[in-house]
């Protein structure tokens, strides 16, 4: 290799500086980081609910019915005398579990379907996209209600699996659309041609070469869908189709009797409402920042 020599400076493996991604994110997206901190707070609440909550969430205390916020019940009590703050903290568990599991489930299924559809194109693509069209034609809440109504309730480890499926399903076509669009542009790239020319299997090309390249839109959609899933779970619970009493859930806390007492005991709906709003806001804030941060055009 007489004709290929390198200068001494190139020989020393001076690795290009890779900035610490966490610090970089904080510096570039301070608002997103605030969102992230709020999300962490909710996670802390969900995990440490047992230690954080001053009362058992299902503990009924008729002596303290409809008490306003005071030093003992900082967010007051409901019509059964249950501590609103404790129920809120335990409700974070339901919200996070259902939100995250269903968002991951829906997005992953959608991403795989979308990537397959975009990679193969032609007839397969056409078929999948028409099914997606049909699914998109339903309003999210209607679709979820239909699934819950048809499948009923099935508890696994205390979590309603069918509720998760019902929330995940409306996300599948949305993610599939996004994944397909990304795949179409990635499938044009020469490295996909190179993979085909190297004789790799379709499965390998989709999973090893395309899917990692749609990870950025995937992550962003997951965060956005978690917010939607939390909202959807709350809506379904509010309508009586989701989590049922006495399990603490934010949507449930807003529904039923609390509606009758909202004048006498506004704290009963104020705090769960705030919890939902803040959670959705935090996830959206984080998701938006993540999108900007992962977009190579916004870097530099």
């Amino acid at each position, binding site marked *: 290799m007489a004709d290929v020599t390198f200068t001494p400076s190139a020989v020393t493996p001076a690795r290009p500086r890779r900035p610490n991604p966490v610090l970089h994110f904080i510096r570039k997206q301070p608002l997103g980081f605030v969102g992230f901190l709020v999300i962490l707070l909710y996670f802390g609440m969900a995990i440490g609910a047992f230690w954080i909550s001053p009362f058992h969430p299902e503990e009924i205390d008729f002596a303290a019915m409809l008490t306003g916020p005071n030093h003992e019940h900082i967010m007051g009590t409901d019509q059964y005398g249950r501590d609103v703050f404790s129920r809120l903290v335990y409700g974070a568990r339901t919200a996070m579990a259902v939100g995250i599991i269903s968002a991951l489930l829906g997005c992953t299924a959608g991403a795989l379907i979308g990537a397959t559809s975009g990679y193969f194109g032609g007839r397969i693509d056409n078929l999948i996209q028409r099914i997606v069209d049909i699914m998109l034609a339903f309003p999210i809440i209607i679709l979820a209600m239909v699934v819950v109504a048809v499948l009923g309730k099935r508890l696994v480890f205390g979590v309603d699996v069918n509720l998760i499926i019902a929330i995940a399903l409306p996300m599948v076509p949305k993610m599939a659309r996004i994944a397909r669009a990304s795949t179409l542009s990635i499938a044009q790239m020469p490295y996909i041609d190179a993979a085909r*020319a190297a*004789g790799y299997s379709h499965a390998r090309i989709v999973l090893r070469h395309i899917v990692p390249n749609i990870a950025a839109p995937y992550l962003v959609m997951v965060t956005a869908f978690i917010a939607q899933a939390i909202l959807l779970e709350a809506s379904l619970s509010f309508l009586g189709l989701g989590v049922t009493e006495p399990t603490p859930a934010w949507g449930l806390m807003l529904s039923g009797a609390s509606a009758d007492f909202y004048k006498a005991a506004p704290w009963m709906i104020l705090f769960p409402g705030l919890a939902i709003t803040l959670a959705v806001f935090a996830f959206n804030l984080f998701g938006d920042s993540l999108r900007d941060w992962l977009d190579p055009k916004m870097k530099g």
Partner: protein
Amino acid sequence: MQDNVAEVADERAGALPSVNAKVVSPESGLSPPVLAIDNLHVHFVTENGTVRAVEGLSYTVKQGEIVAIVGESGSGKSVSALAVMQLLPPNSARIIDGSIRFEGRELLGLDEEEMRQIRGRHISMIFQEPMTSLNPVLTIGLQIMEPLTMHLEMSEAAARARAIELLTLVGITDPESRLAQFPHQLSGGMRQRVMIAIGLACNPKLLIADEPTTALDVTIQAQILELMKDLSRRLGVAVVIITHNLGIVARYADRVNVMYAARLIETGPAEAVFARPEHPYARGLLAAVPRLDRGRSVQLATIEGAPPNLLDPPEGCRFRPRCRYAIDACERVPPAVETEAGHFAACHRAGEIDTLERATIKGVDAAASSDARADGEAILDIRHTSKFFPIGGGFLRGPAKLVKAVNDVSLQIMPGETLGLVGESGCGKSTLGRLVLRLDDPTGGEIVFEGKDLAPLSRSQMTDVRKRMQVIFQDPYSSLNPRMTVGQIIGEPMHVHEIRPKAEIPGRVAELLQLVGLFPYMALRYPHELSGGQRQRVGIARALAVEPRVIVCDEAVSALDVSIQGQVINLLEHLQHQLGLTYLFIAHDLAVVRHISHRVAVMYLGRIVELASSDDLFADPRHPYTQALLAAAPVPDPVIERTRPRTIITGELPSPLNPPSGCVFHPRCPKATEDCKKAVPETRELKTGHTVACIHA
């Protein structure tokens, strides 16, 4: 000046516009140069530090002069042009020091409103991409008339008349009806003509063209550059051409400024710089360019290494780490040394390099065994292969039209040879490459590889073939998966095809990296951490991983800078000798093809029009299209260039949707007769190994 604008617009030799009113010429009676840049420093503030993009740049442009700024990507040539227009990104770019004088008037420090009066009115700029620099939703007419009504406050009717005049000036036929057309209705060459028309609309004194023809085909490139040169002479417009193509510089420029790593390293009259380059970088650059007038017997001289990172450039002379004549003094910034009148080089050893080089250089002759082994059986035999793409059509949309991308092509490639395939964009050369690789399925014909027709093979049968046939792509930025490390990229094919046991793969990856001139530690890097040349080497290593016999190189060096391109070409030739590889080398750059190929096939609109040995084809081209291509391609030598006859073919590549009858070249062919329109010409063998598809050859 707003009151008599129309008059000013029409007579350019008239009194100086008011922008120059404040200016007093430094020399008595002499008008100042159109553009004088002095000691310009531009920095970019980025997250990773300050990039010193332009450092101490000075040059002048006189009226009617064509000045070229040459340099590799990242050398600061475009940044300096954008600085003149003050179109640098305001958030990150800082002009630290220096002055930019336009007709004696300082431009730096003018406010946005004053700059707007100058941009488009007195200085215009033409960009590289004619596809994206015109607004797709506005008509051509509107876009030409806009500067006229804006800057010159012409009436609608006057602007329209002027627009028609301008389109005629830039050689667009039927200008009146063109005004109502949208950019997508015009070809790339036409769009660039429209851009020039817009640039010239207000009779500017200075036209800055940033890589004006890089996106265009060679025959169109010649048309556009001839037009610019002609207009410059006729209208007395000063032109600054920014380019990486030394051939263009040799043919069109009066003066040359060579930039390297943000600094001007050599400047002088074109003849002097090409005949007697002084700076080692300029010398290396000229030696590294493959040339049409030189065969493959000469190995390309290369400049080792890569340009420095401008975040952290070397002290003193920027070229020092790559320079073989570096001495201690080079740790200081070199002064500009005038070696002859008007010819400066920024090198401590300017003036002595020539003698040094003669003493050290030994004749670099490529191995004599570079002749093709024409005997034996073809390893790849393409027989009457066609590929038609349906366009439009489909469900409820009526029948599709057919684009005949490859039309009845026959070619044979012998083991161990390099067959060059040249043609302009859209001629079907890349499609042919994809057919050979079975990335697309042929519509008709046979592709016989090692005695077996590939077309009917199933996917799993092809897997076996793919081990012996590989591909290297054009763009080193997009042909590597950004989410995989170099080691994974190179190791994957060995793993999938089970060529090596899993445990041996890392060792083999290291071997391959060394084979292509990289270092084993690079296996852990991601593609974006490597330079363009290094990535292309990774692409080559990936192709070699399966130990193939044939490699299809699809524009494998087109995206690389000249000095890096030379390194990769040498590497490909070296690997061919060492491993006995066969290349199908697809490219649009005639000089590169000439340099690397044993035999060359010329393609036009889906057909092979001429096929001959490399030397034969370039010495004695028979097909009028080949002749036109060769005439259009500039040679980096002003002396040759200025004596060469220029037979520039007119017109553009016809749409493959609606190809001409008979010989596809006849609408552009100077020799065309009635017979050419009747039948597709037979391919005839004029002498051994030289075939032409032309009835007049």
